[in-house]
């Protein structure tokens, strides 16, 4: 897995935000569109594409997309 692909997959879960506005350092909760529903879409995307279970705490303690990426990466390796 690589960060660039992950950022794209992450961005696809947003309806209104343009995909090219996202990068690894994007603070993903810092926009109008983010909600608990978006969080569920992210969890579903990670489950489907990486077979990894993200918890509520994983999402709560993360600020940037790279933070989530590192959690998924670590869990996918273990």
């Amino acid at each position: 897995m690589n960060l660039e692909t992950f950022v794209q997959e992450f961005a696809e879960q947003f309806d209104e935000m343009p995909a090219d506005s996202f990068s690894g350092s994007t603070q993903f909760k810092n926009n109008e569109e983010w909600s608990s529903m978006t969080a569920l879409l992210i969890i579903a995307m990670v489950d489907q594409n990486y077979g990894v279970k993200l918890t509520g705490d994983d999402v709560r303690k993360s600020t940037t997309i790279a933070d989530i990426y590192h959690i998924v990466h670590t869990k996918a390796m273990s």
Partner: protein
Amino acid sequence: MAFLHIKNVVLRGVAACIPARVEENTDLAHMTAPDIEKLVATTGIERRHIVNTGTCTSDLCLKAAEQLINELKWDTKEIEALIFVSQTPDYILPATSCLLQDRLGLPADCISLDISLGCSGFVYGLSTLASYMQTGMIKKALLLAGDTSSLTCSKKDKSTYPLFGDAGTVTALEFSEGADGFKFHLGCDGSGSNAIIINDGGYRNPFNSESLTTSDIAEGISRSKLHLALDGMDVFSFGISMAPETVNALLRRFNIDKEKIDFFYFHQANKMMNERIRKKLLLPEHKVPLSLRQFGNTSSASIPLTMVTQTAKALSSGENEVLACGFGVGLSWGTVCFTAKYLTIPELIYYD
């Protein structure tokens, strides 16, 4: 792996009773219109039936049971076991099943037992009751399952209140020598016990002077420690991975051909979660009935309520291979597979 194959028992009928009072999610007072629209689109829950103050789960189950006994033409004297599955009992003690034995007029020579489980409770209750019956010493028995979860949620908690509806159900089981019976897979992961919890009011954290204090947890989420707290992300993550896993485990263990199953009844959590589960298992929509649009998440009642409201005609007029899967609070899960033959299913019952 906890698998069971309980033979010589069949499911004869199922009935459901819901409160007549309806609450539309579009009328929610503590949410903005765009938020409500998003909530309904994601959860698929448009309205819920909720009890008036003073009505208990047992009242709903009782009404359903009386109707089913009547339509089955069972003599109450022959009913020798009753299990009540609920997390909203009448009292902390005695067990609600004891009260129901009396109210239903069942003989004193009758096993009566409460099981404290939620979304997985119907499947667990079925396994317990069928186990009692498999040698034929008990011929007829009732499983009552339901909850009045609306009473446990804070009206100012958008993460719980719009999701839960109230319902009571009854399922009738009968001994039938030679029947293939029920195949189960049951499991539990208590490390997730915090994901759905009412913190105070038990004996770990007894009711105290602060139990009723409401605090703001997040935007749109205010509740006290006597209210249901739900970590939506944890539960979602659990549901979309565990439900397909337990279904696949059962199918593999008993070498069941998925194509031969006519209906897959999943606990009705929310549309997004249920759709994920369906898609992961590659199941066609017409085989996976949903009832959550009208009733929301009705805890242990959701599977029998879906059977009654969505598929009564098919279940009562023929032979169907059925799979049911419950998952949630505990965390706990269970899957069952059985043949349903010409079930007796009274029309949905309303409680005023």
